[in-house]
């Protein structure tokens, strides 16, 4: 009898232990740090979009609404395939990593987004008047093709990057992304070039196109020149230089903020 009671007590103890373990909070499986969205973001996105998605060469992602990715599917597609016609490349990530990365990008929208400072309307007036920006840049077809088109610059660049471009244009000149677009022969970095033809003419402008045997350049007047390289005596490429002036000498501080506010507002809408 005593033996039966002992066995019964043992069974009860075992049951209690089982119930205790069952109700005990389960340890959460730890994701590998390499696999987490944050790590993937640092590896693939932060260089352009900023360490916390605050924007830079690429647009800010710390915003509640991603204009180009209004659904999960569209965000997946952008991460995997990039955005045609922009510097945004595709990133080959596996299915689980894609989900983690997309989730992390979405989480950036819960952070404090960039403050909407400056008077965009006043900035627009300054852009077309005192700033004389349209003499080189175009917005929705208005202006010159000498420098990058700004019609959707607010989708492509962060506020801080735009301010830097105005204050120190040569700090971060447009970069060539040719290698991200296999098969595309159109250059896109507005590289300043100077040529001397075999008959002694000196011409300078921005590179419009270049291939193995030819080069096109556009003068600030808008005139486009086409050369076979074999026709040239000299060909100089001014890497890292910009023909854009330092706007600290042209606009006041509050005016610069307003121009940046205008540029940030440019989202491709006409």
């Amino acid at each position, binding site marked *: 009898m005593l033996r039966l009671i002992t066995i019964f007590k043992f069974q009860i103890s075992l049951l209690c232990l089982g119930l205790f373990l069952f109700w005990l909070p389960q340890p959460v499986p730890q994701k590998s740090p390499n696999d987490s969205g944050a790590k993937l973001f640092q590896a693939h996105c932060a260089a*352009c979009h900023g360490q916390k998605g605050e924007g830079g060469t690429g647009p800010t992602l710390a915003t509640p609404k991603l204009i180009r990715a209004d659904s999960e599917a569209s965000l997946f597609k952008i991460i995997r395939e990039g955005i045609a016609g922009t510097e945004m490349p595709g990133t080959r990530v*596996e299915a689980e990593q894609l989900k983690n990365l997309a989730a992390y990008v979405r989480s950036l929208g819960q952070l404090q987004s960039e403050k909407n400072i400056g008077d965009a309307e006043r900035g627009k007036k300054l852009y077309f008047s005192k700033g004389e920006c349209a003499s080189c840049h175009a917005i929705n077809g208005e202006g010159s093709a000498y420098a990058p088109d700004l019609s959707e610059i607010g989708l492509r660049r962060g506020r801080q990057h735009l301010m830097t471009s105005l204050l120190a244009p040569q700090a971060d000149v447009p970069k060539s992304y040719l*290698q991200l677009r296999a098969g595309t022969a159109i250059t896109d970095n507005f590289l300043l070039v100077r040529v001397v033809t075999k008959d002694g003419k000196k011409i300078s402008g921005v590179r419009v196109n270049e291939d193995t045997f030819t080069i096109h350049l556009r003068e600030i007047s808008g005139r486009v020149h086409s050369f076979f390289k074999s026709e040239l005596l000299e060909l100089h490429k001014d890497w890292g230089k910009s023909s854009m002036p330092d706007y600290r000498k042209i606009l006041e501080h509050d005016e610069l903020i307003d121009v940046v506010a205008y540029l940030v507002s440019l989202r491709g809408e006409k």
Partner: protein
Amino acid sequence: MRQHFSHAKAQRRIGFYSCLVVIIFTVTNFAQVSYERIRSSELEPQNWLTYSGSFQSHRFSSLTQINKTNVAQLKPFWVYQMRDPGKVETTPLVVDGLLYISEKPHVVTALDGRTGRPLWTYRRTTPADVKGCCGTPNRGLAILDETLYLCTFDAHLVALDIHSGKLKWDVVVADYKAGYTMTGAPLAIKDKIIVGIAGGELGIRGFLDAYDPKTGKRIWKFWTVPEPGEKGSETWSGDSWKTGGAPTWVTGSYDPALNLIYWGTGNPAPDWNGDSRVGDNLFSDSLLALDADTGKLKWYFQFTPHDLYDWDANQVPVIIDGNINGRNRKLIVTANRNAFYYVLDRVTGEFLRGVPYIKQTWGKGLDDKGRPIKLPNTEPSVEGTLLYPGLGGATNWNSPSYSPQTKLFYVLARENHPQYFFKTDTIYHAGEFFEGGGGRDIPGIEPYGVVKALDALTGQQKWEFKLQLPVMAGVMATAGGLVFGGSSEGYFYALDALTGKPLWNFMAGAQIVTNPISYSIRGKQYVAISSGNGLFVFGL
């Protein structure tokens, strides 16, 4: 009556023998591509009988009608537009005036070599759910006797009648749902069709197969990743061999005298994260020498042990003979994706020489056995590790060429293309990408392509010709003293084989990602290259 009977009998007899003569003539002279003809391809430069032009893979044309003195007058004769859009990587075969091309996806067409008019087309349906790493290209066909052989994207080997394009047989080489695809041209040797496999980014276990040309029955299989107990299995940890990659997606070479097949293998899987595959990972990134009769391994040479960069050794190996250190040797040479040029003894696999031919920052050099001496801190990392060359490599699958006249090895390489190599975790799922990282370009850097002429025995550079962009296009040297090549912008061009001076170019309008060939019909030489969806043929 009797006389009439005799006359009719004689008439029938003459008719019979006339037909017999015609049949014998036709069978022996038209589109009957015997092994002996391929083996002696140098005797018929008017044709292009195998992927690289010869078993030695010289991609050299001994035709001289188009040469340095007149190439400036070269003009397009015809263009054939492929029936389906997509990049074209095919090398046409040419047999007695007809071209045979593989189009995308799995369309084979016979064309009149003088006019580009099609004679027949074979079309096959590819399942919609085939997954490959890098588009759906096909690089060409093999021919033996009266049969054409096609490797399909869903990993079948297909045999077609050369006269009609009708299907003779169709066999499954591997299960595409497990990540296997086929993109390369088969290699037809004496009594076998050798086929390689792709799928190194999807965790396949690579192999090379030999098939009976008549029945499609598999004769042998060589696994490029050994299973436990086999030679080389000690270079894989755990079960990593099961998904070890080492694909064989570019056509190899063959030495009939030694009866050895030489074939390159690709990256171990996963590509950029080697944590699960501790060891050298044989026989990935290697050149294999296999007995053609049995598929047994004669020797191997591994270029990039425990590769973490996707530097496949899927380049066409080139067979030459030459004097090394005072001794005449049978050699095999290759410009590898890892940026080194190698000279090996093709009888034994002995490493003889190796030098970098473009900028590289991952290795201090090669040791006496040809094994790379890696520099520290060159492994892919979470934050990215910057290295030259990038994952596209110094060169890729695009064919090199060797000229017996100049003794130079020509290769289209890429320069100034560093990349950040990333490492991520990855889990194997059959038929899915299994890569563990990737490469990232550096904005602002403009990589470029470059045709390099190297001394074939030393790897020393003789000249280079810069292209605006990197390109996966091959080159072809000719006895006319020329080197033909393609560019990303769409230029087809001819260079002086001795100096690299550009002598002619033609803008074909779209990216060139294939290899040139040359052939002749009725004494007229042509050169051909694909650009975009078009096959362009030029002559004087």
